[in-house]
């Protein structure tokens, strides 16, 4: 059984179709990257997988560990091990970062029948994970994402990934808006989270993240579909030629067969 299997997924918002037949299969331990120009549907796919209800699905299905993912609530997906690192992490004023993460972890643990962590145990866990993203403990005492710089917000996402320990981590443009140092920290954090029993799906506009986090598979999304799949070479080719190169290609539906060859 695959960890994630997306079959012919069509979805949109307000009657406008954004995803127009996405097919994608991910197995445990794999790192996939989805690239594509703005508006190609990358982020819609990420949000949809995490349970955002803004989008309506008109066709197709998504199986997660063999189960119908789309019928699950966002919190149920979290309990089942789906994690989304947000492109724009949300600020929650007045709610401490530490408190937030412990509440989240304990909500998940409770649902999984595990014992909840008390403040001391959680602090110990958090301290260990903070190292991974080179964050100071004082971040834990601030309000969730409030007043964080762009880079800090993204690191905070990776920290939550490490704390919540998901099976499928979706990273939505986690590399965007970062300088090279911050990018390296994020990449190290992500690499530190690669495990045989965990899959990752990296959504990115640029291939530079892929210099540091080497994916097993690269997919290019255009116009609501996966237009091309390949290995890391594909990402480099794109970097060189730009997304315009894709548009010059023949219709992606007819090419799907060609890629499969």
């Amino acid at each position, binding site marked *: 059984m695959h960890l994630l299997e997306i079959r012919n997924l069509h979805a949109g918002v307000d009657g406008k179709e954004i995803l127009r037949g996405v097919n994608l299969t991910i197995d445990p331990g794999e790192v996939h990257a989805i690239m594509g120009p703005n508006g190609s549907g990358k982020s819609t796919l990420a949000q949809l997988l995490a349970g955002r209800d803004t989008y309506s699905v008109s066709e197709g299905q998504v199986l997660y560990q063999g189960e119908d993912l789309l019928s699950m609530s966002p919190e149920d997906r979290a309990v089942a091990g789906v994690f989304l690192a*947000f492109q724009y992490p949300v600020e929650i*004023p007045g709610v401490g970062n530490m408190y*937030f993460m412990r509440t989240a972890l304990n909500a998940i643990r409770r649902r999984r029948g595990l014992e909840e962590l008390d403040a001391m145990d959680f602090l110990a866990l958090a301290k260990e994970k903070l190292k991974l993203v080179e964050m100071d403990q004082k971040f834990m005492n601030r309000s969730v994402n409030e007043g964080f710089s762009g880079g800090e917000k993204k690191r905070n996402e990776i920290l939550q990934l490490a704390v919540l320990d998901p099976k499928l981590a979706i990273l939505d443009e986690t590399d965007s808006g970062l300088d090279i140092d911050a990018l390296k920290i994020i990449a190290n954090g992500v690499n530190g989270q690669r495990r045989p029993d965990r899959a990752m799906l990296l959504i990115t506009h640029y291939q530079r993240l892929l210099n540091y986090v080497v994916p097993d598979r690269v997919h290019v999304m255009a116009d609501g579909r996966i237009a091309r799949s390949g290995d890391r070479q594909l990402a480099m080719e794109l970097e060189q030629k730009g997304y315009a190169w894709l548009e010059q290609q023949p219709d992606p539906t007819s090419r799907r067969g060609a890629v499969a060859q």
Partner: protein
Amino acid sequence: MTTTNEVRKLTEREYEHGFVTAVDEDTVPRGLTEETIRAISAKKNEPQFMLDWRLKAFRHWLTMKEPTWQNVRYPPIDYQDIIYYSAPKRKAALKSLDEVDPEILKTYAKLGIPLEEQKMLAGVAVDAVFDSVSVATTFKEKLAEKGVLFCSFSEAVQKYPELVKKYLGSVVPYSDNFFATLNSAVFSDGSFCFVPKGVRCPMELSTYFRINAADTGQFERTLIVAEDGAYVSYLEGCTAPMRDKNQLHAAVVELVALEGAQIKYSTVQNWYPGDAQGRGGIYNFVTKRGRCQGANSKISWTQVETGSAITWKYPSVILQGDNAVGEFYSVALTNNYQQADTGTKMIHMGKNTRSTIISKGISAGHGQNTYRGLVKILKGAANSRNYTQCDSLLLGSTCGAHTMPYIEVRNRSSRAEHEASTSKIGEDQLFYCRQRGISEEDAVTMIVNGFCRQVFKELPMEFAVEAQKLLSVSLEGSVG
């Protein structure tokens, strides 16, 4: 989606404190005339000056019109259809809790404030106001040692008439406004606190108000005086039983801080808000005002308002002494058909006076929440500062938030800052929490508590915990 359903479940939680205690009431006849006032005064065995003051207020009240400028709607109140005085019947003065009507003690137990335990609770003296008359007061001896006078207003009128005469109406005059004037005429009881020069009150003072007799308007009057260099922290909390008919509550609170004195006044207000259709509930028209009379004095109001069908309340500070400080921290929540028009007035008169206003309004259901604030810096108040932050949080799309700041600065060396924000409890915030595994219900509570944190941290510890609990219960909110 589950979103709406789960929040609706919260919404439909019944008012927890809705029960009626069967106690014999000693009441005056329905309606309001000079006779009513004479009867109240006679029942309380008041000195002449009190009766004269009440009558003066009553005669003035007859010339006044009910205000209409506030942003709330309610059917006309028939002031002749109200019982203006009711007291639990009792034999004689009570010396200990054993003499208190067991029914009343049971009521407190239901509210989670058993007096027996309160007595032992370190640092909290309780002057419990049941309906209109104080029935039990604790910790008196300990306070007396320090020279702190803390008793019911009626008792103060008997025992310290000179102090009452000196300060009563000195901050909120009998002619102040329609509701305060009504209160001045008919007030039944309340609390009195006097902290003498240089004394730091050794404990938090706390009063629990409770409306119990059906159709009895409650007119409380509280007077707190802190002499030079004195300090007192006063807590007020209330809950009220479920009623079908609206009940009028028009209280007056006066605070006087002399030179270098500090008064901290905290309120958790949980009057019956009415049912989910907007029937019943308390009309809460309150005049609260403090005077920083001496230099370097400070008055802080902190309020958490979750109850009442209508809240009309502007705890204010007159910054008269130089370098005086006034603060107002407020959380007001309106849900279902609740309406709140609340805020503060900071009147700067002395030099270098400073005021801070932090207002957090939360609207849910069909609730309407208005912040109305006045910052007035007079000509003589050189180098004065005000900072106002006014945040509104909307839950759902059928509620409303309104902000009406009035700012008048009459000199060039002073500065007033006003920041306001309105946010809808974000779909984004909710989704973020839920994506992390937190249920929608818990997420709403967490976000709202976070929104209010700036105010909660101003509350004394035991109240802060209660306030958070109250808020999650009152979040009978709906995300639309």
